[in-house]
């Protein structure tokens, strides 16, 4: 807990200093942490490995981008649109893919995200494969907008806290207990007269909505919208953050996201082959670090 207190305090304090690089670093961590926490709801709690969560992230990114192109930049319109879109598409994708499990679930979520990827690539009026520059940042009231690093950083930190709070509440409720029970023993849940499917679908949809919130922040952070944010590499990176931190915990993925972004920054300054290093780290993580970063901090990784 102390570790998280310290990290949280650091995250709050850093944007106060007028240092754009570190402020953006905190923002990047928060954005990815939102995505990682949302993915963990599916991977760690429902117990299905989704390799397509970048789809929902991309919905957020493209909602911010396309709405800004249409001249709509108010955050109280952009966010709900992104969240609603993610809910509709997430519910559809979840409804089909949750019928399966194991390997099939991995491939199907991947396939759906590829579908969205190709759709984004096919939007020629929005730059197609190259994407487009975000024409205007998403706006708060009174002249605050997300192109100001500090505003963006605090917005995303607040969003992350919101996401963590909702995730905690959901998983602590009776609803969450059904989800956990169906992960650990679906047959028993069935025999108690409960259908896991609607519960899992609800959580999948919630997870999709959360991920889209991260996407809106990501578009504003990069000031750029591109299909790369929906690619399977992006999905793989989210999955890595979850696993690096330790799946099945709500705070673990945040650590994972922080570690991922820091490694990315450090390695990118050393070498242009960041993916090469990431690949090695991934393999080492699987072979040697059994319980993730949470396992290093706490005794049992929970």
């Amino acid at each position, binding site marked *: 807990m102390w570790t998280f207190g310290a990290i949280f305090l650091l995250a709050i304090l850093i944007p106060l200093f007028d240092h754009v690089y570190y402020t953006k670093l905190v923002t990047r961590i928060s954005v990815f942490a939102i995505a990682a926490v949302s993915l963990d709801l599916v991977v760690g709690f429902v117990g299905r490995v989704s390799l397509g969560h970048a789809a929902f992230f991309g919905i957020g990114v493209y909602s911010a981008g396309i709405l800004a192109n249409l001249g709509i930049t108010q955050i109280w319109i952009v966010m709900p649109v992104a969240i609603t879109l993610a809910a509709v598409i997430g519910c559809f994708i979840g409804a*089909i893919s949750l019928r399966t499990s*194991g390997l*099939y679930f991995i491939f199907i979520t991947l*396939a759906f995200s*590829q579908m969205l990827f190709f*759709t984004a690539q*096919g939007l020629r009026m929005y730059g197609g494969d190259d994407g487009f520059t975000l024409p205007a940042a998403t706006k708060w009231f009174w002249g605050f907008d997300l192109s100001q690093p500090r505003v963006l950083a605090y917005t995303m930190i607040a969003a992350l806290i919101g996401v963590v709070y909702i995730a905690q509440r959901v998983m602590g409720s009776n609803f969450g207990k059904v989800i956990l029970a169906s992960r650990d023993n679906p047959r028993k849940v069935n025999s108690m007269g409960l259908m896991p499917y609607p519960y899992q679908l609800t959580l999948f949809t919630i997870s999709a909505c959360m991920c889209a919130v991260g996407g809106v922040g990501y578009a504003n952070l990069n000031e750029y919208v591109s299909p790369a944010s929906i690619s399977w590499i992006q999905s793989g990176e989210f999955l890595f953050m979850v*696993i690096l931190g330790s799946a099945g915990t709500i705070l673990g993925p945040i650590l994972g996201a922080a570690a991922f972004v820091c490694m990315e920054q450090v390695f990118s300054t050393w070498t242009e082959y960041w993916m090469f290093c990431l690949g090695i780290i991934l393999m080492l993580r*699987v072979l040697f670090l059994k319980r993730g970063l949470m396992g290093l901090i706490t005794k049992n990784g929970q």
Partner: protein
Amino acid sequence: MSLGLFIEQVFNGLQLGMILFLMAVGVTLTFGVMNLINLAHGSMLMLGAFLIAFATSSVKSFGLAILLAMALVFALSWTIEKVLVKYLYSKSHLDQVLATFGLSLFLNDAVIMIWGREPLFVNLPTWLEGPVQFTAEFSYPLYRLVITAVAIFAGIVLWFLLTKTRLGMQIRAGAEKREMIGALGVNINFLFTAVFAMSAILAALAGIMLGPMLSVQSGMGEPLLILSLAVVVIGGIGSLKGALYAAILVGLVDTLGRMVWPNLLGAIVGNIVSNAAIYILMAFVIAIRPAGLFGRRMG
């Protein structure tokens, strides 16, 4: 749409289907026999393409170059299995996904380190160039015919290997019931390495054949890997027969769709639909038969 064009597209579709089959066999066998999800399978295709580019630039004879490229892929995949992959068989799917994803990132950047970011091109020997004139107005590139023929030949060799040899019998038994063949005293470690190397060689063969047609660059295997994952899911994971039928189905749906949809729906929507068609087909199959067309019910 003329008949000639239609026939040409059907040929193209069959060719894509056979390439996908070569990929899908590896995916479905490694899963069926070793219970392994291999996301680095696309990198094997990429390695095949890069190695044929390397081999044709250093060896005169095209045939010799192919043998050299295959031998290199064989040695590489054997090593990769011994160093990394064999530790993954007993891990969870999640760990396998991550480690093989990591392996593919590693290999993608490794080829950039060795050969640079600029795409390479493979020159065809002259005897493989040029069209074949079927009728006065219908001709088809010879090389594309050769690809289809080689892929079919590879399929037949594979069929022979799997159904008529001792190793093939063990592989099929392994795909059927993994625990049993170990208990019967078959050398599982050797069998697994062999299956992994064989899968890699088939993917590399696909890469070698695609090399002269595509620009050879890092990450070129991934789109084909993802298509072949769709093939495997449609056909039913672990089923070789399913992989064959689904590969041809996917090849035809993709190729013919690219011709049909833009005409029906206009350029932009048609383009999107033709890119996503395979995944729509896959979602449709899964919604009706969750275990795929030829799959056994998963427990």
